[in-house]
């Protein structure tokens, strides 16, 4: 009797063990084709970067170990502080604005509308238009002397319209506006895909319960979109912290250091000043910030799911 119980539990444990091994095997078999490429081509260089952050590598020859020197130097580097503050400034405004704009667009264009294909394509156009053209046109629109934006503002009675990209105080808002405008179509696409996964029965049921449009949005759309929102939030956070191209062509970090961001600092230290070890250390700080926020989002998301 007793031995029989032991035998069954042992068998059960064995079976569970086998099942777990089998599950792991199946899981890995799905991941492997992508993982092999990912590990060799991306992960290895990224891990190499972690090593290089503790060296004074200059891209050529050996990489002498310098311990924590690069990190202590970062703590005292005022340019690094400026770029970090600017990046946070950009991120704090860019994320909510883009989230609102892209979700709004997705909701608006997720309906049967005459010409919806055209409007969707138009919303996506900023993302595919050459970034140089975008920078040129927006810079011109913002021009304090000739730009239509300030002409409109003066027409509306604004006494001293902002200098936008030519002013240290207004260059960052200008960049945020353009970045939001450029990326909303991109995230709209992700939201559009997310909206398709909401079963219509849920809306039907809510309607039967007498929910108005706002309540349906709050109680059906928002919760059902959670995995998509998580995706968008994580991508947006990382994307905002890594903002580079647009600033490079729009303001190149100026005037002064008013739009200098982390990625640009890294590029400058690496490719212009050839301090690749130092650049690696700064990118590890950037990485750590992004990862911390992502893990936080991950945990919050997990908790909400339950």
């Amino acid at each position, binding site marked *: 009797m007793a031995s029989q119980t032991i035998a069954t539990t042992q068998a059960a444990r064995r079976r569970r063990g086998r099942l777990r091994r089998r599950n792991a095997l199946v899981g890995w078999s799905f991941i492997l084709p992508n993982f092999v490429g990912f590990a060799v081509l991306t992960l290895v260089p*990224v891990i190499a970067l972690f090593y290089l952050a503790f060296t004074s590598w200059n891209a*050529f020859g050996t990489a002498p170990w310098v311990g924590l020197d690069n990190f202590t130097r970062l703590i005292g580097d005022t340019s690094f502080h400026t770029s970090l503050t600017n990046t946070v400034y950009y991120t704090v405004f860019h994320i909510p604005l883009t989230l609102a704009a892209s979700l709004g667009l997705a909701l608006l264009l997720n309906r049967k509308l005459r010409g919806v294909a055209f409007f969707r394509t138009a919303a996506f156009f900023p993302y595919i238009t050459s970034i140089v053209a975008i920078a040129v046109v927006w810079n*011109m629109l913002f021009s304090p002397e000739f730009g239509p934006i300030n002409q409109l503002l003066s027409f509306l009675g604004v006494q001293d319209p902002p200098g936008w990209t*030519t002013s*240290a105080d207004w260059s960052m808002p200008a960049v945020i506006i353009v970045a939001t405008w450029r990326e909303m179509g991109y995230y709209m696409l992700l939201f559009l895909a997310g909206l398709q996964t909401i079963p219509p029965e849920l809306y039907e049921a809510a309607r039967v319960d007498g929910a108005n449009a706002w309540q349906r949005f709050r109680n059906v759309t928002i919760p059902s979109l959670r995995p998509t929102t998580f995706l968008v939030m994580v991508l947006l956070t990382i994307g905002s912290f890594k903002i580079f191209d647009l600033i490079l062509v729009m303001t190149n970090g100026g005037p002064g250091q008013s739009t200098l961001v982390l990625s640009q600092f890294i590029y400058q230290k690496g490719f212009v000043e050839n301090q690749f070890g130092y650049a690696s250390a700064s990118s590890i700080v950037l990485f750590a910030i992004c990862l911390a926020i992502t893990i936080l989002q991950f945990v919050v998301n997990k908790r909400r799911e339950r």
Partner: protein
Amino acid sequence: MKRSQMTAVGVAAAVALSLAACGGGDAGSDDSGSAGPVTLKISGWALNATPEFQALADGYHEENPDVTVEVVEYRDGNDYDTQIISDLAAGTAPDLYVLKNLNKLWTFQTGGQLLDVSDVAGELDGDVSGVDSYEIDGKTWAIPYRQDSWLLYYNKDLFDAAGVDYPDGSWTWDDYADAAETLTAGLGDQGAKGTYQHSWQSLVQGFALAQTPDADLLSGDYSYLEPYYQRSVDLQDAGAQQTYGTVTTSSLTYQAEFGTQKAAMLPMGSWYIGTLLAQQENGEADDFSWGIAPAPQFDDSTTGTDNTPVTFGDPTAFGINPAIDDAKLDAAKDFLTWVAGEGGATVLSELGVTPALTNDAVTETFFGLDGMPADDLSKFAFSTHDTRPENPVAAETASVQSILNDAHSAIMSGSSSVADGISEAEDRVASEVGLG
């Protein structure tokens, strides 16, 4: 998972170490043979728009049929440095490569990416300018083939229309500023401005550093920039030149501003001669008569045609990749001697490019080109100048330059006053670079 993570870290660390250990490597070990035909690979950029590299390659091959010179095409601008640094780091760079800017010499030399070419430098003609700039620790690391210098271009038709006398070689910067304002007033109804100063940092800082006595980029003291900035700011405040804001927000190009007669003067490098000739030929630029004058001077101790005006400009040079096959080394050095000498100079001046070698023959070829001005001052300005490098060659140069570039945009956009912008730059250079 733990174990596999450890292995992954181990593997990556090993790769990192091996990456770090072996810069250089297996570049071009395919050709060999001691005396037979040799193929040299050289770097060049944007070959469609920059024909000089192919022309040099062909010119050399013609005189030395045994040696084939192959140009590897890179991008222009900062992208060139990105690409060539990657190639050198991976050991895939060509046998000879161009140092686009003098400020990269330090990087490449201290990184062990240049062969000592002092022996080539020793044999060169004394008229090759800029060779000294490539010395570190008493050895020469690259050989210049091209030397650009900053000059003052002016539109004779617009000067006539405004009733202003042409520059005569006696100008200081104050004379230039006065002329710009008079021209602007006189050209009001044509909508042209007195001058066009492009948004570059070098346009203000290059002249200030080259011309001001005792100015030193590495001293941490940048008060020498002050009069130059004050003048530039005053010029745009007076409307004698487009504001920095307009230049940057409208992405203005100097080729269009001067070429389509929107400005009567243009301080610019000698590279623009070739472009302007070509654009007047193909109709991109208006048909007007122009001339070149020496760059305006710090004070009248260097003005006048009996003096040598001081200006700035970077040479462009070829260096030898240390990974080069030994069998090609002699050919590579011979190529360097040739591009810096008479052979290279002839090829370049026919293209409207200013060679490192300056002599009467070069000036002659240049002014024989279709569309060149024929007046004496233009010839004087072209052939006579003391051209200083834009920056000293040193470890700190790149960092100082980028801090001064921030100061440039802050001051020119009006975000900082001249004095504040300069003192902020001094503080940053002291704290971030440790100078001054």
